[in-house]
């Protein structure tokens, strides 16, 4: 064997190699981490405007049930699910579109024409025709969804709300 390299030189080279290797590893880790955490930065975005039909169709003050197709993107695929909304009017006759999801525990709330109220079949949450809370365990009235009218067509943007909070909180 040739005389071994001086000890200090050996350990200096070793430290240098480890340092460079560590630096290269750290640089390579950046794209890998960004790659793996992509879903944390892209949660599907908000829903698109969905046409509910001609606005005149909803002139009646009785709430009308309508179905909204909600498109949700999970990475490489998009799913379309149907959600129920109620088209109704507020106290001064302005058009409103309500999410049919009970603000108590999330059951779908039907309209009871004989009572002229929304009655949740799960835990007896009562809402008035414009969605306001009447009585029951629910913390707030039915949530109203963003709407717009374009060329006589009513559009709605479907949203999901958190249950059991006094103020509506959009969660997606």
């Amino acid at each position, binding site marked *: *064997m*040739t005389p071994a390299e001086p000890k200090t030189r050996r350990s200096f*080279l070793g430290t240098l190699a480890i340092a460079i290797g560590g630096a*290269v590893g750290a640089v390579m880790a*950046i794209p890998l981490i*960004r790659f*793996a955490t992509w879903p944390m930065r892209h949660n599907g975005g908000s829903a698109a405007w969905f046409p509910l039909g001609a606005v005149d169709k909803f002139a009646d003050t009785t709430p009308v049930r309508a179905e909204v197709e909600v498109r949700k993107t999970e990475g*490489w695929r998009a799913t379309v699910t149907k959600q129920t909304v109620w088209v109704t009017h507020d106290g001064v006759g302005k058009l409103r579109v309500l999410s049919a999801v009970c603000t108590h525990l999330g*059951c779908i709330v039907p309209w009871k024409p004989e009572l002229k109220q929304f009655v949740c079949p799960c835990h007896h949450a009562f809402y008035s025709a414009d969605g306001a809370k009447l009585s029951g365990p629910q913390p707030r009235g039915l949530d109203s969804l963003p709407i717009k009218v374009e060329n006589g067509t009513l559009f709605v943007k479907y949203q999901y709300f958190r249950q059991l909070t006094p103020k509506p909180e959009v969660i997606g």
Partner: protein
Amino acid sequence: MSIGDWMERRVGWRRLMHEGLDEPIPGRSRWAYIFGSGLLFVFMNQAVTGVFLALYYVPSADHAHKTVEFISKQVSAGAFIRSLHSYGSSLMVVILLLHLLQTYIYGAYKNRRELLWLFGCFLFVLVLGMSFTGYLLPWDQKAYAATAVATNIISEVPLVGNGLKTFLRGGTEMGTLTISRFFAMHILMIPAAIVAALALHVFLFRRAGAAGPPTTEDKLRALPVEPFYPRQVLKDFAFGLVIIALLMVLAMARPTSLGPMANPSDPTYLPRPEWYYIPIFQWLKYWSGPASIIGIVVIPALLFLLLFALPFFDRSPERRPHKRPIAIGSMLLVFGGLVWLGARSYTEDRRDPAVHARLLAQEEEERRFAAAPFAPEEVTAATSSTVQKLTAPESKGALLFVSESCAGCHGPGAKGGAGLFRLPNVATTFPGEQLKAILRKPNATMTEGGMEPIVLKDDDLDGVIAYLKVITQGR
């Protein structure tokens, strides 16, 4: 006591480091010896990038192509990581050939290194298997066509050929089962075999010791010896840095392409394999008819057999290349032949105007696809997880089950779920008229759980009951 001493007592790492780093190299460190470590670097790159790609890839004919497109076009650094993986596979083949040539030219397979060589050859085949199985996974035109051709070639093998082809494809035609098994081979079986063979290869290498330069026994003994660390380690390390830098530059400058999704019904598509299979691809063109078995099976099998068995028949201790004209000559012949075949393939493609135009069109198609914006795969989710044929009252019941908010507490199909109440088999729990009664007037347990009396017309309730019977007990 220092941490080093504490660890030493439990792990014995100093002895391990000594074993690993102080391996004597006769005739000192050389740049010629860097390829083995180089392969380890590339293997690490393949393993890490491969594991990350698996975060998004789906091995199915329906989704494979879409998920690879998603990786390439949407995910942060996705094109970069996929390119590292795909260029890494090419680089693996290049460095593997260099490692093989160096060992061959240096006569380093001699002197009780038969098993070491054998495991090296085995690893060579496994690496080719990795590139073969990995090439299909993006499921684009090029991947599909190349694998269709390659698996057809396998059917040329006498007796077992057709069976082998069907086995590899998971059927007579290529499809979703082909992807599943190629995926399993690519990420589970072959890597496991590689790790095992690699461990034995390295163990046998250490056991035999470094071969040193190609010279006579006497001169070799007189040469100065240098430990593996630091000089050889640093040379290997420098090569590792070059590899990573090269892969990064390639991945950034020319990201790996992805063509349109495989379309088996397109007969005009001209398949071309990855560059390192081109010489074999060209070779196959020269064989047709009954003689093709010689060209397609016998000659390649013979060459591989010769390669594997080399140290068993080349028994002379002579290692100097200029004293081994047959060995070096046949190596030059085979490599020269492969290079010639590869070059022929490219020039033939270029000279045939129809082929040339078609290949250019395919490249253009690929570029267009790569430039097109990503659109997710559209799925219309079924409202119920159970797809069953229902009678009229049952389907009315199914609608009522949702509109009366039963599903809100019992889950779709009354299957329950987190925070939901799964329904028991209603027909046996509440036989006869009991079921109707309990739905109209729930018992205390049910009321406690939040169940409300059902107010429905009689025939509507019958529909609900019919539906409940279907979903809780089946037919």
